[in-house]
């Protein structure tokens, strides 16, 4: 039954061979993308996922980095003393497709083949963990802009830095916030908590932060349900049913953006209600608003940054970012990336050289005085990770988002408990 016509007759082997060799010819010269102008530019490797599961946050972070680089270059570049001139920053970008083996490979590639002075990247903990190995091997500073789990910084690596505060802190800040609501009398004492955590270091750290707080502050809350769930599941009805059966008053989940949207949709569709509801560090994203409308109202989130922060530098950043990308920074992702570039630039200038170890030493002492992050200054701790406070934001009706905690940064009152829908 073989068809008489076949593609094969029309494509003799030498054509395929030619196709293959041409593609090889295209590939080979482009092997090295940073090395050529090592002398007159500072090469910064950027490895982030812009496809795959983490594509969306990775995209935001990439935009934050590119905005910072553009601003630096617009101002003439970074002053390097031992070259006695300002050098522009050259970005070498790689998309790791949300694959951890690939991300480590690409960081290695940027460090070795492109001679990057520093590498930024690693959105989400698993990718960050894999990448962090390379920094000390190639003695190249690596700053993660999107991996927060403290394990990355607990191995004594000398060249790893991170602009995200640890997730345990997120957990305890969340609990702090709920505790303050109890103190204000908005919530009763002794409420029951249900935790649903994504099965990653991130989720586990978050849960530990909350549980530790509860241990230290007896009487406030009790945990009646705590379970991990798999990322990327299309259906959470079983898990939610279990949460429902636990009869908790407060539901705290820790999820990635996609899972947050899926789970919240099913949460609403099964008519569930809790006095307070949070998805960890997710909440105000406009994608969620688009997907769920007013279904995301009153959800609160502990985040590394909010565009509502009352600092002048934040206002300027929001403006510049919106102009640069054509959309609003609706989530924290670009801010930590933006600040990472600025901290790096400051370190290079302080080091006065493009020597990587000198830059590493300078990074340890860098203090970004006009940081976007809560607190307004950013400094890497002794393990390389920053420890800025978190802000708690709450979604409010009509697409409003307010910072509700801590008090000094608040732009609105926390609404608790969540009003029941009629």
């Amino acid at each position, binding site marked *: 039954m073989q068809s008489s016509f076949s*593609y*094969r007759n029309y*494509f003799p*082997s*030498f054509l*395929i*061979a030619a*196709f293959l060799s041409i*593609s090889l010819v*295209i*590939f080979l010269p*482009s*092997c*090295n*993308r940073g090395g050529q102008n090592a002398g007159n530019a500072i090469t910064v490797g950027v490895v982030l996922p*812009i*496809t795959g599961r983490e594509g969306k946050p990775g995209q935001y972070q990439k935009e934050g980095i590119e905005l910072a680089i553009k601003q630096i270059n617009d101002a003439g570049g970074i002053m390097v003393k031992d070259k006695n001139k300002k050098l522009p920053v050259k970005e070498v*970008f*790689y*998309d*790791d*497709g949300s*694959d*951890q*083996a*690939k991300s*480590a*490979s*690409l960081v*290695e*590639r940027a460090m*070795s*083949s492109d001679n990057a002075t520093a590498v930024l990247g690693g959105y989400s*903990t*698993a990718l960050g*963990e*894999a990448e*962090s*190995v390379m920094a*000390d*091997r*190639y003695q190249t500073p690596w700053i993660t802009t999107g991996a927060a*789990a403290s*394990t990355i910084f607990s*191995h004594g690596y000398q060249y790893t830095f991170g602009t995200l505060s640890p997730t345990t802190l997120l957990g305890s800040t969340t609990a702090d916030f709920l505790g303050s609501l109890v103190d204000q009398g908005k919530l009763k004492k002794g409420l029951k908590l249900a935790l649903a955590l994504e*099965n*990653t*270091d991130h*989720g*586990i750290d978050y849960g530990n932060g909350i549980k530790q707080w509860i241990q230290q502050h007896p009487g406030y809350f009790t945990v009646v349900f705590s379970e*991990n769930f*798999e990322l990327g599941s299309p259906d959470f009805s079983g898990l939610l049913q279990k949460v429902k059966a636990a009869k908790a008053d407060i539901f705290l989940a820790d999820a990635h953006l996609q899972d947050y949207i899926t789970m919240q949709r099913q949460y609403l569709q099964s008519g569930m209600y809790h006095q307070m509801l949070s998805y960890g560090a997710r909440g105000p994203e406009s994608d969620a608003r688009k997907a769920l409308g007013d279904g995301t109202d009153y959800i609160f989130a502990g985040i590394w940054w909010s565009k509502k922060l009352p600092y002048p530098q934040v206002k300027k950043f929001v403006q510049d970012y919106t102009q640069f990308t054509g959309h609003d920074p609706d989530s924290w992702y670009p801010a930590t990336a933006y600040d990472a570039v600025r901290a790096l630039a400051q370190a290079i200038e302080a080091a006065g050289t493009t020597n990587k170890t000198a830059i590493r030493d300078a990074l340890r002492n860098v203090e970004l005085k006009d940081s976007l992050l809560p607190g307004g200054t950013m400094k890497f701790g002794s393990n390389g990770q920053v420890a800025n406070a978190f802000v708690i934001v709450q979604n409010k009706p009509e697409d409003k988002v307010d910072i509700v905690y801590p008090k000094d940064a608040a732009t609105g009152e926390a609404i608790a408990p969540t009003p029941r829908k009629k």
Partner: protein
Amino acid sequence: MKRLIASFQPLFAAGILLVVLLLPILGLTPNVIRILFITFVWITASLAWNLLGGVAGQVSFGFAVFYGLGAYAAALMINAGVNPALSFVGSAAVAALASFLIGIPTFRLRGPYFAIATIGVSEAVRVVMNNISAVGGAGGLRVTERGIFHQTEHYYSGLAIAVLAVCVSLLIERSKFGLALRAIRQDEDAAADIGINPFRCKLWIHAIAAALTGVAGGVFADYAAYIHPQGVFAFSTSVTILLMPVIGGIGTIWGAVLGAAVVTIVEEQLVAVFPQVHLLLYGLLLMLIVLLEPDGLVGLLRRMLRRMHVDPSSRGPDEALWGRGRLEGREL
């Protein structure tokens, strides 16, 4: 002329080996050495899959299990202070053991059901590994690094296992066991009718393939220093291991080697150079091979040699290297 080429083949292989042995001394950039190292790891896994899938005809979508278990075994042993070389042996043992546990029930299945079952097993193992907190669970597992990182050491480990895999493949294909495996691939019942126990043969070749894949995983874990269930146990790892021999020329040793090299380098370059369209190009390349060149790259090479009136495939000893196994007509 044919004889001339035939007698040059070992020399040719020795030449390649010499060149790759000397490469690091020639002062290549760490990036190239890294790509070569990864190529060696994939060559090993690709040859291993080829033994089971190409020679014995049992298409498995579950080699990530062995790769991942090898990686975890090596990581845990290195962390416990075992010499890395010894821990790679441990990887092989663990993977081979797992292959029996998987093979004993699944090799009773015929037709596409074996392939399907391997998908189920491999995904289930991934999920379970993701939840066992004793080995890091979803947080992944970090491998303790011993002192300073020497890339060339890893390079030579990679080279060693790739050479080992080639030798094992050559030995098997030229042995009576290899002949039995080929018989099983073509007609399992007829093979049983001449006294071959297909079930036992499949189990053994599965174990050998798993051991090689496990070693590859172990060597990779030692290099990466951080492994994660969603990475080493991922379904995409199984698919990559399967695609390499298919692209190179299923059932042939050169095919598995060439396929691994081409896939590694092309994918690396596609991701780096065309991040926007790398999936598209990779997909198109694969479609071209499936539709136009079912013998894979080796088939392409053979056709070109034939054009030059040199056919390396018509003599006995080269059968294992050049083979005749085509993708066309291979059932799951």
